[in-house]
């Protein structure tokens, strides 16, 4: 298979307005990935599937990844004038990277027997703008896996024909695979909580310890 750089050049020539970014992978596996904006994801997937040299006709793995807000601390040396004397002072700068959710696709070619090409889409944040494009219209095999990513991560796949919860029950509210998911006090309803469950439940009770 061509390198990701070559694919990027050709894809950008073929699809007008597509923004692609290559993300390096630090591990030994060196499976670097390609980041695409959700508006052009369908066009890119169609290109990857139909291009005679790529023919990535098989979406093997589709999943979500949660990246919460991250604070990175960096020590920088800055020259400052303190009491008339210029001194080099070490300061810590805090950078906040806003969190996002990520949908990851591993594409292979069954016809030409090569791969994988790792394709990623990112949402704008983790709360209300959690939309990416569904690739189910191109790869039917992504149907259940996108539903699973929606179920466990809360990624909204626009254009998915049947986006419902798949593993959790329909009435379930939260997204359990997120990093900040809080487990419920008790998995099954107990009218009279006792022992550990009561201890946990009392945190939510008003003053006095009674529900």
């Amino acid at each position, binding site marked *: 298979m061509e390198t990701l750089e070559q694919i990027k050049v050709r894809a950008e020539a073929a699809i007008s307005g597509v923004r692609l970014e290559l993300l390096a992978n630090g591990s*030994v596996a060196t499976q670097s990935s390609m980041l695409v904006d959700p508006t052009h994801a369908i066009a890119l997937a169609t290109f990857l599937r139909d291009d005679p040299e790529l023919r990535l006709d098989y979406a093997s793995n589709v999943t979500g990844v949660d990246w919460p807000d991250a604070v990175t601390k960096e020590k920088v040396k800055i020259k400052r004038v303190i009491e008339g004397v210029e001194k080099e002072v070490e300061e810590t700068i805090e950078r906040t990277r806003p969190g996002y959710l990520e949908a990851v696709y591993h594409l292979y070619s069954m016809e030409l027997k090569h791969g994988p090409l790792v394709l990623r889409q990112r949402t704008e944040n983790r709360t209300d703008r959690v939309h990416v494009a569904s690739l189910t219209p191109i*790869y039917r095999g992504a149907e259940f896996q996108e539903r699973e990513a929606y179920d466990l991560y809360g990624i909204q796949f626009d254009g998915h024909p049947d986006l419902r919860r798949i593993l959790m029950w329909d009435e379930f509210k939260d997204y359990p695979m997120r990093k900040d998911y809080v487990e419920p006090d008790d998995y099954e309803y107990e009218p009279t909580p006792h022992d550990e469950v009561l201890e946990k439940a009392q945190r939510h009770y008003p003053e006095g310890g009674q529900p």
Partner: protein
Amino acid sequence: MSEQLQEPDLVPPHPPGWTEEKVADGFSVPATPSEQPGFQISQRAEVRPGLEGEYLEVAIGPHHPSTHGVFRMDAVLDGERVMKLKPVFGYLHRNHEKIAEMTTYLGSMPYTDRLDYFCSLTNNWAYALTVEKLAGLQVPERAEYIRVITAELTRLLNHVCLIGFLTHDMGALGTPLMYAFREREKILDLFESLTGARMMCNYMRFGGCRVELPSGWLEAVRLLVDGFPRFLDEFDNLLSTNEIILARTQGVGILSAAKAINSSVTGPMLRASGVNYDIRKVDHYGIYDRFSFRVPLGDHGDVYDRYMIRVLEMRESLEILKQALRDIPGGPIIDPKAKLRNFKPKVGEAYGRIESPKGELGFYIISDGSANPYRYRVRPPSMINLTILEDMCLGHTVADTVVILGAVDIVMGEVDR
């Protein structure tokens, strides 16, 4: 006399208000699902006399013996024919991925046994392979051979059980299944003497295997491999040309090659549709490039082909086993540099996959440099093979649905995770 003969004509042939056309329409055979474009669940057929054409919504499962566990199919039926079918699962969901993200890399190795509890050794291998890919570990020669031997034994075990269950689904209650379980017991005995457990083996480690082979184990495997073709011939003679099996499986649940590829179907189901894609041949993971074996391919993509592919794959597995038993070298079984405790791979990610008996089993792991994986994902072949279940069942009877589901080969531990 002639007037008397004509008398019956005076009796009105239909209830009042019915014309000839209405009666003919009311009792005609309803259109087949393929002739009804754009069928929707809300669209109800007109209620006609005699109940023909009335759709019935039925939940097949979750506690039905033919669904292989707690699996439900919400079906819309027209008489006996399936018009719509939605698989519903998740009853066994315990969020394996979250549990694995909360423990160390090694800590989730025993838990992978519980995914597809028939094939714990291939699950172990897929996970070990991915972590080795992530961290760049080398596996000693002898360990690679042991992995191939155990994986091929697992394939024999899985396929033989699947055929047993499939015949059970068709109504051959007991006998073929017991024949299959007799052979399965022999393989489980081998696993027990090697790993200490019959099903939850927990045998692979990153960079090798856990324990050395017990004395006489390879001889025992050789004995099993020598005796297995006799059983296979017997099974083949009993089942492959059995009239009932032919009638129940041929032309049932046909899946075209293009559809199979597009819906990410893998494993024997894909090859039954005639697509030559075996990850042992494509990726050459482990040492599979050293063995000569063939990849059986189906012609029609129906249930019979799926059954036959498994019989033929077992014969090829025996070929691999013979070659592996002949060539297995001595030496260490685990890389002496491999760290089991305090194992922290570099920051990065890896996707590794193997050809498990049910299809492509993949693991996707992201490391953030700590002792726990940041993201741990299992690509379950049984769940993804169910994507196309509805398309295969449409237009068939409920009894055929059971057979089609049986030939997909699902294990709920892996579907729900």
